[in-house]
């Protein structure tokens, strides 16, 4: 199913970041995608299920969370390394990458959400450095 992907801050992400990005709480706050309840029904997923989120830049398995309010057609991922693995680099000569309004394909998938270290390994394809 097609979505418009938006990334941004949440209070849980900010709180977890200050506790420490290497802690499990940070992953739980960031490795998620918030969806509209009706869109979740159409996808056949419930809170805590996993989905595959795919953009032109990359793809990841993330946990689903119900958005606090309605947002039909919009998928939201909190700011962090998981969100940015899906974001491209074109700044249109402004310095600003396209962190918001990105085309994404979301499909239900039972899979493992990568931990922070596993995510960094996707970049280097080996042990971190």
């Amino acid at each position: 199913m097609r979505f418009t992907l938006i990334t941004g801050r949440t209070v849980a992400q900010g709180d977890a970041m200050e506790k420490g990005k290497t802690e499990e709480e940070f992953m739980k706050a960031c490795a998620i995608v918030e969806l509209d309840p009706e869109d979740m029904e159409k996808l056949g997923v419930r809170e805590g299920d996993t989905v595959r989120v795919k953009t032109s830049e990359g793809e990841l398995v993330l946990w689903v969370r119900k958005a606090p309010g309605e947002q039909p057609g919009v998928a939201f991922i909190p700011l962090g390394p998981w969100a940015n693995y899906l974001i491209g680099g074109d700044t249109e000569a402004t310095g600003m990458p396209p962190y918001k309004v990105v085309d994404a394909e979301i499909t239900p998938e039972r899979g493992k959400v990568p931990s922070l270290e596993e995510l960094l390994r996707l970049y280097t394809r080996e042990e971190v450095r």
Partner: protein
Amino acid sequence: MRVTHRDVVCSFCGTLCDDIEVDVEDGRIAEVRHACRIGTTKFLSASRHEHRLLKPMVRENGRLKEVSLEEAVERAAEILAGARRPLLYGWSSTSCEAQSVGIELAEVLGGVIDNTSTVCHGPTTIAVHEAGFISCTLGEVKNRADLVIYWGANPMHAHPRHLSRYSIYPRGYFRERGHQDRTLVVVDVRRTDTARLAQKFVRVQPGRDYELISALRAVVNGRKLPTDEVAGVSREDIEELAEMMKSCSFGVLFFGMGLTQSPGRHRNIDNAICLVRDLNTHTKFVIMPMRGHYNVVGFSEVLSWQAGFPFAVDFSKGYAWYNPGETTANDVLQRGECDAMLVVASDPVSNFPKPSVENMLRMPIVAIDVHPTPTTMVADVVIPAAIAGIEVEGTAYRMDVVPLRLRKVVEPPEGVLSDVEVLQRILERVKEIKG
């Protein structure tokens, strides 16, 4: 013994709340009052030393190894002085004093210096160059504003006390009944937690903010819209919002990443500034960016004093050169134009897009920070720093460009210096190497 520090400034977000009470017991922070959830965590986690960076480290044979501060400074200076065009990035979560030393270091190195505004309100800065700016202080918002609009911003998550301290809930000189004397409007693509508090929520279609601003300008300037809806918003809603804006006595438009990071970028802000300018033919209206990091504004101030430009300055020509799109961190990284990085109080491995991170991982990185982050995990030199506003004093600028003095409430962990001192040591050594 328990000591209470009052009116402490919180060094988390650009709201820079200056009414925090911190109880210190046996040299550790025991209790925090008045701060938001994130600010409270920031103060309390300072005293959880087991989750801090405490020892300088240098990468050897692929692993980070603890070394003396002298060794780490030496290795950092060698990497930076040996680079052809290093990128010095971060700077928004530290004091103006540290920023000042960092800018001198960039000049001595002939490198590029950029801060996190490059990925938050950089487009706002570009728009201000084009259109000027009509703003005010947060004190004026508190005392005067009767119409408060958040556009593409969700302060209940990113600036949790913004509404309660300045914009909606406080009683002001001309707003004696607090929130009863004010109207809250939110424009967003999602019904956020801030939108749920609003009297009026306008859902704009993603990426179509520019069109909606243009439609509002048309109506404010007396035109009739030729279509029934613009950017997913009905003509009735646009006309109602335009009327609310024209008829208030002091309106404020706060905007966030919803405008700066969406298609259009600086053009969205340019148009929003022009809308506010148009509104001033009818009433008093101001506009203010919701600045994220607590001293992101300070960096632009200090860089403007020292180099003449607000962000993204390249010293590689031997003088300060500013050209967003060319000298901005992500563009420099993606074109592979830098060959080493110094990261101070920031985590670009988490917060930069994939193509930038891929290039970062190909070059040596020196990181100065408080906590371990994905950036310190992949860095070649890691130097711990004390926390400005908790363990060292300094100056920071609030989102409305008001400078506030950061306080010290506890001692830093043993052997951990402020980033000002660490940067001065690196600068001294770089000067020696460069001759």
